[in-house]
């Protein structure tokens, strides 16, 4: 029955809002029956909306973005080797790594621009500087780093402008660790579970991977004339340190983040990661033997480069996979809520899953 009346004076008992409620304007005596019928839905593994993903997958594409991640690390590592080589008088290694640093840095920018929806607007990246946006920070970093690496490489290859070259080498080396690591923040600073949840380890994976790759490139210089074991020894050391660091970070992350780590061991991403691990081990072995055999050195160096690339591709595809399946978003969040609810002690209407 309506709560409002049509009196001679007009409507009485109107509702301010149009708050209609379904299934309540029925005789009370029917309530018992229905209350008894109120279903208890058994907790499904998790529910979703027709299996559709909750978050939108990144529109970033391979090889642009995984390549961009890989090249950034490589460049960073190379600039460090280059600076060290200058200081310790390793001319061959210096030339190779300076060239590598510039090539990798420049290529990473090309990859980034190529992936833009509106490449023509690349310069808009420079309209602001936002610490909240790792991509903004990265753009400014690369903006400083790539020219420096360029001058360093040019000077080294032409033998001209040595002072400028030295300064540029130093500058590039200063920016190098940032260039190699900011991309970790870049991908972690998203809602993609496999990336975001891994943010504490991701930077160490990335820098380790970068050192590994640069070391690998350094070891390849053994193929050049006049490059003995001593020339590439720092590269070998850097590669081994990087490999150890990268592997350790990966292990820790996969054990720590639980379900969100699943895509790193399954599917396409998982296969890349596995390949990375195998190649990394082989590369490390090759590097260890690089003192004795230039073949081992070269093969190890190539393997380390490949390992670093494979890992980046693996991380990239693992992210896509975790974005594409709602369970990676829903299950951890639902667990979080339930724990919070339990902590609050009461079933506050949330604790139903």
């Amino acid at each position, binding site marked *: 029955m309506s709560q409002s009346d049509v009196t001679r004076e007009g409507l009485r008992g109107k509702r301010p809002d149009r708050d209609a409620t379904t299934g309540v304007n029925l005789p009370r005596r029917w309530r018992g029956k229905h209350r008894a019928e109120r279903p208890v839905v058994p907790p*499904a593994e998790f529910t979703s909306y027709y299996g559709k993903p909750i978050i*939108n997958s990144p529109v970033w594409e391979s090889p642009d973005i995984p390549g961009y991640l890989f090249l950034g690390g490589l460049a960073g590592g190379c600039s460090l080797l280059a600076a060290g080589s200058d200081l310790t008088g390793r001319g061959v290694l210096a030339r190779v790594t300076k060239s590598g640093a510039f090539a990798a840095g420049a290529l990473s920018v090309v990859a980034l621009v190529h992936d833009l929806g509106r490449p023509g607007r690349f310069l808009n990246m420079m309209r602001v500087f936002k*610490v909240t946006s790792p991509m903004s920070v990265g753009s400014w970093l690369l903006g400083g780093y790539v020219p420096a690496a360029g001058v360093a490489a040019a000077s080294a290859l032409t033998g001209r402008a040595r002072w400028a070259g030295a300064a540029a080498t130093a500058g590039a080396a200063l920016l190098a660790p940032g260039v190699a690591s900011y991309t970790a923040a870049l991908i972690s600073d998203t809602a993609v579970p496999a990336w975001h949840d891994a943010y504490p380890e991701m930077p160490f994976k990335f820098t380790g991977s970068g050192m590994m790759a640069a070391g690998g490139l350094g070891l390849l210089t053994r193929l050049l004339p006049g490059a003995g074991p001593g020339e590439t020894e720092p590269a070998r050391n850097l590669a081994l340190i990087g490999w150890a660091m990268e592997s350790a970070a990966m292990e820790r992350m996969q054990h720590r983040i639980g379900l969100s780590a699943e895509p790193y061991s399954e599917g396409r991403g998982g296969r890349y990661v596995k390949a990375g691990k195998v190649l990394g081990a082989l590369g490390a072995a090759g590097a260890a033997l690089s003192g004795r055999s230039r073949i081992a050195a070269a093969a190890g160096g190539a393997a380390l480069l490949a390992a670093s690339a494979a890992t980046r591709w693996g991380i990239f595809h693992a992210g896509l996979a975790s974005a594409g399946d709602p369970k990676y978003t*829903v299950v951890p969040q639902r667990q979080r809520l339930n724990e919070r609810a339990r902590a609050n002690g009461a079933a506050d209407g949330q604790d139903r899953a």
Partner: protein
Amino acid sequence: MSANGERAVTWLPEIRTRGLRSALSGPALSGGADPADLSGYPDHPPRMGFFTDTSVCIGCKACEVACKEWNHVPEDGLNLLGMSYDNTGGLGADTWRHVAFIEQRKPVAMQDAGVSHAGVALPPDGSGTPPEQAAMTPTTPGGPADQLRWLMASDVCKHCTHAACLDVCPTGALIRTEFGTVVVQEDVCNGCGYCIPACPYGVIDQRKGDGRAWKCTLCYDRISDGMEPACAKACPTNSIQFGPLDELRERADRRVTELLAAGVADAQLYGRDPGDGVGGDGAFFLLLDEPEVYGLPPDPVVTTRDLPSMWRHVGAAAAVMAGGAVAAFAATIFGGRR
């Protein structure tokens, strides 16, 4: 570069304040804080938003059409999805309002659906089953065979208090307006796509063939002229309510209390709590089931909440890398082999 990139002037100070604040302290998750204040608007109108009361939605989709008409959002193809009456699928670059339809074996309070499907096997994942894998419109199992309810809900950009899309945008194309809403400047966006995986709700997306990111503007042009957004204007049952966020929250609190008292046991507010992971939504909802049933994340968190910690880890990793390099050379010296 766009023709009038100089609209940038209006947001530059805003980005700076917002940016540094997050960087130094992380987003103020204390809640309550008005995003327009945080964004450095000296004096601004009250924060405006949506309260979508799904319990009175009749699924007419007028909001979807009105939105596309007003904002010239492209039509995005003919696909019979088999997701009940939802042939839109979800929010994206070309869908700024999306009406979800869910068929469930549950009653709304004492509602009697009159149906009977004893002995019909429902897919175990219920309405979480992709239609092509189901023999029928996926329906939530567990309830009695003579019960059925048809949930309808109009989804939209949440205009978060702490908006990840806005935080991560490297060009400043995404801005916070004086109404506290989040808007993409289409003449600035360069389509880097960073905002897309950053959004915890899967709202903003890249338009194919256009390259830029698009999403609900809460009809910035209309509300700037004192009109309500197109979707709210078109809604025949006031399921979509537009107004100052504070008033909407009060109304929503009254409404959910009323529904729970009336026996609508699953009724819950979503995105209303300023203490949640995104500091509360500018567009929040009254739902009749758990958020994930509607394709919404149950406990969304703005990814930039962890950004300060991320930068610290990056710094550490960078230092370790530098140290590693030094060590790599040092070893060669003290290792003595030459």
